[in-house]
């Protein structure tokens, strides 16, 4: 009896000892900050109110009435709507191409994946020039279309779209990787027997490839949506969220509220909103994982 207790105690001590280092850092920089944000979001503290005053849900109510916050939120939704489907569709098509033993597939893989290897801030500095009025390659291209000089990043109507194009360029190759992995898991004899039965290539994609890569699609969708709420470096470099908040996104607005306006209560409240949003999106991911397990 005694030795069994001893064994149990030792095993538990050992297990906890092993996870402790990780748990310590996670506690300090994930759980504690989350709780702290939730707590601080109930207080008013900014340049005018130096010592925190308990205000309950007032910060959240203020957010609902803050026209900038609403605009930024709407921008972020549009940003997700613009980047997610296009980059995923491109990724899927590119993966189809790069998966087969076709000449030039190595080049396609490199061309498509390299944007993912460079920092967003570097991508932003390149694209800033591509979009620069008069001199930038894409700006010249656009003005060739419209017949007049265009400032793609300076116009509230075009700025978000321009950033979406850049983000699709940056991300599509990353999602291609997941589809490449997904395609490899499809048994090749499915296609062979389909060909023998005289089923065309297009129908094969529709009936075999798309359904069997569904788990990948689900997984990538969640990653892509989450990313749409995390990208922020390019704003710092290219637009500062402007002109007139037309390109600002949630995380950038939190950054501004924290470090430019010094409004801690509001920054905390927005952080909580972001956390809840990401947790909800992640729940879909678990549903996706469940599906993936069923398929295997």
């Amino acid at each position, binding site marked *: 009896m005694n030795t069994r207790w001893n064994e149990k105690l030792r*095993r538990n001590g*050992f*297990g*906890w000892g*092993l*996870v402790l*280092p*990780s*748990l310590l*850092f*996670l506690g300090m*920089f*994930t*759980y*504690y*900050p989350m709780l*702290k*944000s939730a707590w*601080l979001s109930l207080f008013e503290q900014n340049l005018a109110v130096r010592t925190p005053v308990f205000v309950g849900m007032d910060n959240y109510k203020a957010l609902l009435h803050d026209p900038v916050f609403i605009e930024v939120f709407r921008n972020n939704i549009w940003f997700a709507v613009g980047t997610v489907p296009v980059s995923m569709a491109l990724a899927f098509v*590119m993966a189809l*191409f790069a998966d087969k033993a076709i000449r*030039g597939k190595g*080049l*396609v*893989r*490199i*061309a*498509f*994946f*390299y944007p993912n*290897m*460079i*920092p*967003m*801030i*570097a*991508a932003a*500095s*390149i*694209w*800033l*020039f*591509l979009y620069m009025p008069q*001199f930038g390659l894409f700006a010249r291209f656009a003005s060739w279309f419209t017949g007049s000089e265009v400032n793609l990043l300076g116009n509230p109507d075009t700025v978000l779209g321009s950033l979406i194009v850049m983000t699709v*360029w940056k991300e599509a190759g990353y999602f291609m*990787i*997941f589809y*490449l992995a997904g395609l490899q898991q499809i048994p090749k004899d499915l296609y062979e027997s389909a060909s023998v039965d005289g089923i065309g290539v297009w129908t094969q994609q529709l009936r075999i490839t798309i359904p069997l890569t569904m788990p990948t699609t689900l*997984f990538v969708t969640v990653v892509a949506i989450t990313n749409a709420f995390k990208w922020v*470096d390019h704003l*710092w470099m290219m637009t500062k969220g402007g002109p007139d908040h037309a390109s600002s996104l949630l*995380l950038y607005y*939190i*950054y501004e509220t*924290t*470090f430019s306006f010094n409004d801690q209560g509001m920054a*905390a409240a927005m*952080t909580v909103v972001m*956390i809840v949003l*990401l947790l909800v999106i992640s729940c879909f991911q678990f549903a996706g994982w469940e599906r993936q397990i069923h398929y295997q």
Partner: protein
Amino acid sequence: MAGQALWHAIMLLFAAAWLIPLLWMLRNAFLPKDASIGAGWSWNFTLDNFSRVWQGAPFGQYMWNTLLVTSGIFAVQIVTLTLAAYAFARVAFVGRHIVFMLFLVQIMVPSDVLIFSNYQIINELGLLDTKIGIMLPYFASAFGVFLLRQAFKQLPYELDEAARVEGCSSLGILLRIYIPLSKPVYLSFAIVSISFHWNDFLWPLIVTNSPENRLLTVGLAMFAKSTEAGAQWTDVSAATLIVTAPMLIGFMLFQRQFISSFMHSGIKG
């Protein structure tokens, strides 16, 4: 067959379009300053931009800092995640399901979102504008723990038992069996972790404010902002090339490993 050729052509066209930003950067990085603003196309070639950039900002220092920070983070991560992954894979301790759920939280709520509170914590610790302050929040990686736990779980238990019969301790088994047999997973994690931290921007920007502790990405952003728009874009292109070159060269050389490690980590993470 015609359809095949068309499909082929369209894809290669896409690939070519994707390369435009890279080629544009390369061209400007090597183009004489006055030629870049000129209307026509120029085939002139110069290395002046690089020497000017190198003198204009301490990019050597930035690169050293980035190297230090990324390898420091990775070195600590290896230790913390190996231990935790082993516990989750092979030690039946009380509460491990709850702890496992707690680890999931970090994957769902990445530290980018928590910059506001994390900044305050680093401030309270007195670690603002230090390299350790940049590294600290990343010392534990739940993602890495999941990745490695999966690998550990796939190793046959018989190895474990055989080693134990030989009188090997748990930590000995971990060191002599689990770690060597999981090398490919470590490599995958290394690539993902290092490329992520090499490219990270917002957090290092917030934490540092002196050139001694600035990372490459932050240095590039500062440099680009300080130059007058347009007039010096050859310089900025050269600086961008300096910052992106290490990752780009690594990727070109080990394309297969890079892509397979991303596949690996993405699907199983």
